[in-house]
């Protein structure tokens, strides 16, 4: 036998390669698809709009949100003010949010914005009414959060669902914060403290009746308050640093 036979893929390895093909549609399990930030609770991508993969994702997540108990009875309520959308038959609506209610103008919405209510036509949640907010320039938003974010930052998130799914927006800001605050203690470049040359000795004298007021004295000379404060901040910084080191 030559070495090359041994180093080649063995039968078992080939078998395992095939397994994914035999396996069923695992890829859509909840773990593998991060929650879509654009699709918040109760929102739905219209099945008519062809994006099959996303629809599948959505129906997958839907059960945990709200699903009409029965999606069969078909009454027709045409949302009159609904702007450029297909008039759709709806099935049983979620009692809490009738179309009329959704059409009411929330007080946080600027005057020049429009509201659009769409009713889902198919899928397990057919009949569910979705509300959109249309900016004066025609951009469509799905939630109050998105609108307010847009009003605050002036930018809208890219519509690219895939890249959005990769980076959940609610996470990234807090991550940045963490990264910012953690290195702060570790950044010693602003410290002028001379770690290498402590004094041979110091006498700390209790200053008043206050249990924690102590004055450092070196060679019978009182150390200036500013030094004492600097030492105190180094002390707490190092203590904090060691605590965070111990935790990790």
């Amino acid at each position, binding site marked *: 036998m030559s070495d090359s036979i041994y180093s080649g893929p063995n039968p078992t390895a080939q078998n395992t390669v095939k397994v994914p093909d035999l396996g069923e549609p695992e890829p859509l399990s909840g773990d593998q698809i991060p929650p879509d930030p654009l699709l918040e609770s109760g929102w739905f991508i219209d099945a008519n709009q062809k994006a099959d993969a996303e629809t599948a994702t959505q129906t997958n997540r839907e059960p945990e949100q709200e699903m009409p108990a029965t999606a069969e009875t078909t009454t027709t309520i045409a949302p009159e003010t609904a702007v450029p959308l297909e008039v759709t038959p709806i099935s049983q609506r979620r009692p809490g949010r009738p179309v009329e209610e959704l059409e009411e103008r929330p007080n946080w919405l600027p005057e020049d914005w429009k509201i659009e209510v769409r009713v889902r036509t198919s899928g397990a949640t057919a009949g569910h009414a979705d509300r959109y907010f249309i900016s004066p320039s025609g951009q469509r938003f799905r939630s109050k959060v998105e609108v307010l974010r847009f009003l605050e930052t002036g930018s809208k998130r890219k519509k690219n669902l895939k890249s959005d799914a990769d980076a959940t927006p609610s996470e990234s800001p807090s991550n940045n914060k963490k990264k910012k605050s953690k290195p702060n203690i570790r950044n010693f470049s602003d410290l002028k403290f001379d*770690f290498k040359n*402590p*004094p*041979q000795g110091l006498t*700390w004298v*209790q*200053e008043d009746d206050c249990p924690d007021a102590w004055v450092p004295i070196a060679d019978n000379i009182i150390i200036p308050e500013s030094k004492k404060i600097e030492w105190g901040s180094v002390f707490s910084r190092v203590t904090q*640093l060691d605590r965070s080191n111990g935790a990790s």
Partner: protein
Amino acid sequence: MQSSHLKPLVTLSGTAKNSAVGPPLGLVDIGVNDSAYLIRVALPGVRANKNQLKCNIQLNGRVHIEGVITESQFVRNSSKVFEMKVQQLCPPGPFTISFNLPGPVDPRLCSLSFRAGGILEVVVLKFRIPHLSSEGWFEKWYDCWSLP
């Protein structure tokens, strides 16, 4: 060997020396962690009067605590003199308590507290030098067991 290293000899002088019986002055606890030593010293009868309690901390880990045991306020505030029939507490007067910490410390980096319970607590950081990256970020500590 190690335990004797961790339990330093405590030297008492002044009135602290006389309190062999009873709730003694100068009982010491010393704790240690990665970064610091914790010292707790029992100082019953020591009042936190201004400039009366002193704690001298040396780079080599030597600690001296100096203070004064005050007289009973009943003696102080009246002309009466009491002849002591039983005396287990430290008699009034100055005292010192001295001991060594297990390693060198930075005398600047300490926090002291003497509260009503009569326990003096001191946390003093070990003498360590931080190793920094070229941009000034902390990477690790170098323990300084040998003094410069």
